[in-house]
């Protein structure tokens, strides 16, 4: 049956925008009323959201299942850490981390995008584990399984122009929040641009897209690099937060967390990975209080949600409960039906 939604009543049109504005205000106020723990968790959720988004650019938009997304996160984190240990400048560290992740993405992407489906997944898994091994074994450079420690939360400064002290948690929170919001906004623009449309075409039919005059391999590589940059950005903001980086962030199970979060939220929606990241952390945080085998219970909950809410939490919200939501947030994925009011 064809589903069609009637044009929403005018008053509905602005609700998503208002909700979004309220959410941003809430995020801005968190350090003022929520305490250190929630502030700290929110930062982690923001980083994880960027990480999950980067993964979903490949799966939900380009149709490529990557199991190596954590390697770019790790490259971003280690590169940022290395830079901060030498030059205490936050801006330099983060930008350096993103750039390094991008360079690695160019190299690995060049080798990976020649293959699709399971071969692509296996290749990304292999390269991911190679990066993990380097983090684990190259003790002189990466610190081995101890990781890198004593990374300063360097001030945000451009010498001679301004300098912001980042050592209070709240200050760093605002840095992470603003960078994340800007990054998410740019991501939104990308997936709704001609480039985003082309990537979605690759997802839907590789053989057809070639007959639009598009080189599938080149565009997959572009998608892969953008995803790498985003994972790198998420990773690069981690060392100043934790003051350490350790190899587990490069492990494939860390990539798998992005897979879980995206599935949980819905891979065919823009906001899916972000909502999934939030749910993932909240569920994990609750379960961890009761048992150290939290991953088993998390797995069961994800299983139930994925089977019960096919298409993810966000899809279900949009399709069944509040169809008008997609006016604002539904674009980009599979379920876009109304693009103009």
């Amino acid at each position, binding site marked *: 049956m064809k589903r069609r939604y009637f044009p929403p009543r005018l008053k509905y049109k602005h609700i998503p925008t208002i909700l979004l504005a309220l959410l941003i205000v809430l995020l801005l106020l968190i350090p003022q009323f929520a305490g250190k723990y929630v502030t700290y968790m929110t930062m982690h959720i923001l980083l994880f959201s960027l990480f999950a988004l980067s993964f979903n650019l490949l799966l939900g938009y380009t149709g490529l299942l990557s199991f190596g997304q954590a390697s770019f996160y790790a490259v971003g984190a280690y590169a940022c850490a290395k830079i901060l240990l030498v030059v205490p400048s936050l801006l330099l560290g983060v930008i350096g981390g993103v750039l390094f992740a991008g360079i690695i993405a160019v190299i690995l992407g060049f080798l990976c995008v020649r293959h699709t489906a399971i071969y692509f997944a296996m290749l990304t898994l292999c390269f991911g584990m190679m990066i993990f091994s380097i983090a684990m074994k190259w003790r002189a450079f990466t610190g081995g399984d101890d990781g890198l420690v004593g990374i300063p939360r360097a001030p945000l400064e451009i010498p001679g122009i301004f300098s912001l002290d980042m050592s209070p948690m709240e200050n760093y929170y605002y840095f992470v929040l603003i960078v994340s919001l800007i990054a998410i906004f740019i991501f939104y623009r990308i997936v709704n*641009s001609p480039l985003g449309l082309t990537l979605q075409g690759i997802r839907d039919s590789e053989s057809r897209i070639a*007959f639009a005059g598009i*080189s599938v391999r080149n565009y997959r590589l572009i998608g892969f690099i953008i995803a790498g940059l985003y994972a790198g950005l998420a990773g690069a903001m981690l060392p100043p937060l934790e003051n350490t980086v350790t190899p587990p962030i490069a492990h494939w199970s860390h990539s798998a967390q992005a897979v879980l979060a995206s599935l949980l939220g819905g891979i065919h929606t823009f906001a899916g990975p972000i909502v999934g990241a939030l749910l993932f952390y909240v569920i994990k945080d609750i379960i961890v209080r009761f048992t150290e085998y939290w991953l088993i219970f998390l797995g069961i909950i994800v299983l139930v949600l994925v089977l019960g809410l096919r298409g993810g939490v966000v899809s279900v919200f949009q399709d069944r409960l509040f169809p008008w939501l997609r006016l604002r947030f539904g674009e980009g994925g599979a379920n*876009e*039906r109304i693009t103009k009011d």
Partner: protein
Amino acid sequence: MSELLRTEGLRKCFGDLAAVDGVNLNLEADVLTSIIGPNGAGKTTLINLLTGNISPDSGKVFFKGVDITKMPTDKRVKRGICRSFQIMNIFPRLTVFKNVQLPVLSVLNKSLKPFSRLDDHRDAVAEVERILKEVGLWEKKDLLAGELSHGDQRLLEISMAIAAKPELCFLDEPSSGMNPVERVKVLELIKSLSTEREVTFTIVEHDMDVVFSLSERIIVMNRGKIIADGEPAQIRENKEVRDVYLGEEL
């Protein structure tokens, strides 16, 4: 008449079977050509070779005098060759509008734009509107392509093929699975598109009524070889063709 596409000794084997066996072919501009033949004659394989889906074992393909034998599909499309598929090949999870918008943006070399909105490219939007109105899918532009009826999906495929602004466009069984009414509509559409958009169509068809009412030239294939080539009237009289079609009334 100017030559658009030429092949020299084109050959492709699958195992021991020569699906296309030494085909020498000329396709001329502005001549609506049909390729017919019984099942397994090698028609689709021939098109796959010409559009770059598969590469030949031997032989060459020239497009407007340029050797394109080794050229990948997307580059051939940029030079002016496009096609539709026998088995439906659309972007099922995108809207009808975006299905056409994608190749249009590619023609305008705008596929790489990462930050602009889709609707900001007015020229593309206008072109999509023109195409969809021409094929009669404008009313359904906001539906997902996967939700369209079979006939409409075929129309959409033709829209996507011509959106790439080809000079030469192959249509692989454009009317398969359609009812007689839809079939007539598609025929009319192909005729009007070929004059209005100056596209040279080459059609693979099973339906003889379609072939003989539409084509200006017919190429008959059997077992990988071209066995007849000429105007519809000539083909109708050709003995070998009649034998291949087991005395079917042509």
